[in-house]
């Protein structure tokens, strides 16, 4: 089979591009450590969330020094807790599940983004910066009221976080 010299050159350049792209994704995983949402969490009974230790009361709690866990439930058409209040300059792991259909969890303007599939728990860990209010969007179609499904993620100062939590009032 005759392959033109320019064609060979193009082929080599194409393969180089492909290897570079795979390399860049690999670097993203092992260098900056961007982990994928995966199968780290066990499946869960989507219709039995009320009896679940973590999701019967969706909340944010401290699990280590400057480390927090946020248990979030998505449903047609909202998120609990609302808003999700987390402290600044901390490491927050979101555990998100759905009580009905497939939803999305996207903190607008950031790369905190995951699918929410009923029967599964999505785990994503993020680093918070300074205090700021973020919009929380369901980015997967979930029914006729999909467009009203909206939440908030409030990143607040440590002091405010403690005040809110000890006050017992989430809002």
């Amino acid at each position, binding site marked *: 089979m005759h392959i033109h010299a320019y064609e060979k050159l193009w082929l080599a350049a194409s393969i180089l591009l492909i290897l570079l792209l795979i390399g860049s994704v690999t670097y993203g995983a092992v260098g900056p450590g961007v982990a994928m949402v*995966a199968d780290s969490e066990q*499946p869960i009974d989507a219709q039995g969330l009320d009896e679940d230790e973590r999701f019967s009361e969706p909340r944010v709690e401290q699990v280590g020094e400057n480390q927090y866990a946020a248990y979030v439930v998505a449903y047609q058409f909202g998120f609990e807790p609302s808003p999700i209040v987390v402290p600044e300059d901390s490491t927050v792991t979101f555990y998100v599940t759905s009580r009905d259909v497939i939803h999305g969890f996207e903190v607008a303007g950031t790369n*905190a983004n995951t699918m929410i*599939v009923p029967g599964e728990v999505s785990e994503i860990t993020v680093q918070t910066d300074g205090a700021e209010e973020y919009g929380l969007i369901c980015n997967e*179609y979930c*029914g006729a009221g999909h467009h009203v499904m909206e939440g908030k993620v409030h990143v607040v100062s440590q002091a405010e976080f403690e005040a809110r939590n000890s006050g017992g009032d989430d809002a």
Partner: protein
Amino acid sequence: MSQAIEAEQSFVDKFPEEARLVRAALLSSFFALVLGAIFGIVQTLHRTDVARIIPSTDYYTVLTAHGVFMVISFTIFFLVGLFTWAVVRSLDRPLVNTKITWTWYAIMATGMTMTGVAILAGFFPALDMSADVLFTFYAPLQAHPLFYAGLTVFIVGSWIAGADWFRTFLAWKREHPDERIPLQTFMVLVTMAMWYIASSAVAASVLLFLLPWSLGLIDQVNPTLTRTLFWFFGHPVVYFWLMPAYLLWYTVLPKIAGGRLFSDPLARVVFVLFLLLSTPVGIHHQYLDPGIAEGFKFISMTNTMFLLLPSLLTAFTVVASVEYGARQRGGTGLLGWLTDLPWRKPEFTGMMLAGLMFAAGGFSGMVNAGMNINYMIHNTIWVPGHFHLTVGTAVALTFMAATYWIWPQISNKPIYSRTIGLFQVVVWFVGMALMSNAMHAQGMMGVPRRTAEPEYAGFDYPLMFGGFEELNVQIAIGGTLLFVSTILFISNLVLTMGNPRVSGLAESLPPAISGPDDAPRVLDSLRLWVGIALVLVVLAYALPLAAIINRGGLLGPGVGTYPAWVTPVLDALAGAMTPLVSVLGKATALLVGVVA
């Protein structure tokens, strides 16, 4: 010269029955295109809040109709028409039995009508039927059983179509035992081999899980499993849309440019690569799914990146073939030859602009495929921005452009106005440039896809590349131009159908510069390639599917049904079938009238 042209028979002169089928398939395709375009303009203006003529809760019915009519009916009906033309033309023999051919056409039309009725019923609350599940129909959102049943019937029709072409090829093979498979037939057969593998998964998902579930025979399904089976089909289906465009770029575009295809063997290699690689990549649509291990996602990512190779090779071959054409026409210089191309021909300019946009779509696709940067844009409007460049332009604009070239040959009627045709393809390009660019930009801000009202009460989007509102205006203008372009296309075609029949519209396709004899025999060994493709699919999917079933069970971990169709189902089915039968009868009569 004119003597010779007049002596040459056109496709319809040689194969009148086949030409009739091709016309019917293309008209079905364009009927879906018009419906899809109407829903498209409603949706564009609604989403951007320029004009909201429907309640936002109905937006999702519109979106389902736009998606299904565009990417299932428009694309696949065009494909079956084009492939029938390509097989018959390149083998230079009629189909074995056109009764079979009309049967699969009728089956596909019936299936699509069933699905379409189920979707459109969503606009009428009194009908107690809806399928507001979008193109992806993710469980546990549930559609009316008619929706799933129609899809199954449609896919079965496409399988028979493939068998029809294989059978015709085998008949040709007996008559020409020692010849290489003609290039166009090779492309059709390889594409159909891919389609059988890919569509088996969605057929299994619908027949084993979704249809019984919608009929109330099983209580629940495993959402991750049906979702994974959908994407097993959902990625290769994009190549099913694209392969007819590739067939046109490889075999027709060089001729229109005044030249010949650069390399026949490389065209075959490219199609074989698509057969091998387009299925074991579907998990890249599920990078952000819980319940699927990171390793499976990584494998899918590497396969996806290698899938760039056949498209990059195509870019080279197509540009080289066009450049050859330009130089044959007297073009010179490093880039000066570009001015010696037939830019006044709508079929040429349309396909070239489609190819240009496909390059842009390829780049945004690399971002989608990049597993970790995908976090930024997953399920944002960036994604529809991407696929409106690929299926929405590379495929759709190529189909429309090719129609200006192929329609005269299958009807003996010259195009009503080639000037309007040229204007139409340019309007599409400009409209899509505006709309797609703004969609990509909004996606970077985090604006979600698939929503009636992307503006939220509680927060504003960050400013990037212009504000949210400004980009909305670009999307609305772009979408409007696309609608205008579609109307121009259809009007031009309808007026063409009113033209008197003439002779002398035949076009022949020259052989490649580097012909098939240059290609190793093994390239034509379909059994071998299908075998390897199956092995790759098993390698990519056996473990993930086993893991998913192991985690959630075949029938899902305690997931409900939204909404449930169980009770009203039998009544609704009976209620739906009665008017359907009469509508079908009328539609068939109408179509037969139009085609004949």
